[in-house]
């Protein structure tokens, strides 16, 4: 068996990726007890370890010294470290909340009442003859009411008072409360929100320790809330204005979209046109039915056809043609006085050559033999280098993006929640 393994290693040497994959599969087969699934797994005894020639284990996960799942001592050590971290964090939290004068996470708001009145708006002077006077709700301090272009209607039915709430920075809020301003107060709902956000942030970060019930709880909440969020947006932003408003415009105008412009002349056409997505929508929902699932293929076919049509035009126009047009540029860049700009010209040349080299690598799949083939091979290799630089830049930007998000979360924890950092001195 040792001989068989050595043979596999020899054949795979020089191809790091496939070597790593092979090792991983063999190790996982051992752990899961799939002894009869492959010949390699059948004969591999637990003490046989495959190592790369250069740096120990090909896959660190297969190294019991580094893999906590395979090493109980390491797992206990990690649990102890996390326990200590949580204890220190808990003590710090208690100190912060109980000892510091203004502990942590308080959100203050200012409440005010705003009055609206229903007013008669006169048609503007010189307006087209079709334009009539209208009524509109205006704030009681609106300039239109002051200058007489709108006249408030009398009676309680034409007056509404709404509570408005705006956030106030904690330091300013405390000062105003101390000065007796009763409009400013601690917002229990928002303060609770910050604490809940902090809990969920820590719950997700707890996955760094290992998969645990708190993380799973947060993950379940994320799935439920996320599905409901997108469903709600789809309902209010698309279904109501695009479908219901065309089927029953007057009802929707009076119920949810008072600004909806209803054109009586178009109503029948709009209604008939709206029936198509309504029927297709019901057919799509038939996918949930055990027997009528095939009916949903019709709307699915419509979605696929529409997406194909939209993407065909968008990608040909926006990506293929636009990118090609932006690449075919003068290689000698001149400034306003007509003299050559060396840096710009070099940049244009690098860009032009790069696009051609990568496209050669993608599309000219000729054998790299003979005069032409060798040349294509060299250009293709240059294309690969360009691609590697592109992937390196993309990787760098991705890492930066993730680290930015991480720093924002830490800023939230230490700033908004714990109030340990306060660069703007507002807390």
């Amino acid at each position, binding site marked *: 068996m040792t001989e068989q393994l050595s043979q596999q290693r020899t054949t795979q040497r020089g191809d790091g990726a496939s070597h790593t994959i092979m090792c991983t599969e063999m190790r996982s087969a051992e752990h899961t007890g799939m002894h009869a699934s492959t010949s390699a797994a059948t004969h591999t005894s637990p003490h046989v370890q495959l190592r790369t020639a250069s740096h120990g284990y090909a896959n660190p996960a297969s190294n019991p010294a580094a893999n906590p799942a395979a090493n109980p001592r390491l797992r206990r050590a990690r649990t102890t470290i996390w326990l200590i971290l949580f204890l220190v964090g808990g003590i710090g939290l208690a100190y912060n909340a109980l000892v510091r004068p203004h502990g942590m996470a308080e959100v203050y708001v200012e409440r005010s009442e705003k009055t609206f009145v229903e007013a008669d708006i006169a048609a503007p002077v010189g307006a087209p003859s079709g334009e009539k006077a209208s009524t509109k709700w205006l704030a009681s301090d609106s300039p239109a009411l002051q200058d007489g272009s709108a006249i408030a209607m009398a009676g309680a039915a034409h007056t509404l008072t709404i509570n408005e709430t705006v956030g106030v920075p904690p330091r300013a809020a405390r000062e105003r409360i101390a000065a007796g301003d009763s409009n400013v107060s601690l917002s229990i709902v928002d303060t609770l929100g910050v604490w809940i956000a902090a809990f969920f942030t820590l719950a997700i970060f707890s996955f760094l320790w290992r998969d645990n019930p708190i993380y799973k709880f947060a993950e379940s909440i*994320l799935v439920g809330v996320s599905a409901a969020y997108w469903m709600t947006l*789809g309902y*209010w932003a698309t*279904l109501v204005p695009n479908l219901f408003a065309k089927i029953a415009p007057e009802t929707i105008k009076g119920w949810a979209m008072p600004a909806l412009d209803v054109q009586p002349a178009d109503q029948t056409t709009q209604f008939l046109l709206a029936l198509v997505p309504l029927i297709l929508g019901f057919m799509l929902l038939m996918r949930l039915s055990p027997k009528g699932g095939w009916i949903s293929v019709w709307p699915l076919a419509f979605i696929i056809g529409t997406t194909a049509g939209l993407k065909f035009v968008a990608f040909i126009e926006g990506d293929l043609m636009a990118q090609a047009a932006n690449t075919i540029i003068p290689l000698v860049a001149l400034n306003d006085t007509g003299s050559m700009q060396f840096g710009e010209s070099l940049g244009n040349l690098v860009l032009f050559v790069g696009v051609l080299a990568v496209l050669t690598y993608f599309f000219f799949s000729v054998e790299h033999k003979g005069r032409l083939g060798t040349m294509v091979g060299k250009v293709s290799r240059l294309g690969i280098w360009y691609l590697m630089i592109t992937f390196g830049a993309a990787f760098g930007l991705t890492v930066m993006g993730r680290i930015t998000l991480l720093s*924002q979360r830490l800023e939230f924890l230490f700033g908004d929640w714990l109030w340990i950092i306060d660069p703007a001195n507002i807390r």
Partner: protein
Amino acid sequence: MLKRTIPLFITGAAGGILILAYFSPATTNWGEVVTDWMNTLAAVAFILGGGNLLFVNLEKISSKRSGWAYALVTLLAFVVTLAFGVLKIGAVPNAQFPATPWAGDYESVRAPFGWVYEYVLSPLTATMFALLAFYVASAAFRAFRAKNIEAILLLGTAFVILLGRTAAAGILTGWISPEGPFAFLRLDTMAVNIMQYVSTAGTRAVMMGIALGIAATSLRLILGIDRSYLVND
């Protein structure tokens, strides 16, 4: 007929109308109508997704399968958030139309739905992505080895971009004059030049390749050559 011919016709007609709408001004309106229908169907697909989530989790809870308690949490979160949003519970009244309660702003942080977004969904999503910082770094440490010229180019570029866009660029190469002949050696300038010329060239060629691929796939679908989405009897 019902399961194959009509769906093929619908795909071809929908795709064909949209392509025709681009090339012929006379049919632009048709394209707009079809796009409207598509947007509506996409919104219905969200309802389908919600319904599916409901069925899957209810089935898990009723059969008391492993992890059913988490399914219950998912379900509760889903139902409560949906009620806040669709019923506009506690929505902030619209300042222009205060007398129309359903015209209120449900996405404001002062409304329960907006509150859930601000203090639950937003931190959860952001932290989930932030978590990837650790795993990207860990994976890079395990996988990247500068053992040939391609790998060196990839790693070197990643380092230049990472250093060039942070304060490290100023600390390491800030002493090189930005106006002098060696300005291109400054890390921040190198990062900009790589992004502007070399990376743009690679991205552009990749985009052109993708565009050709998508155009070919779209045509296969519209012309009925690719029928993989149809029901198999």
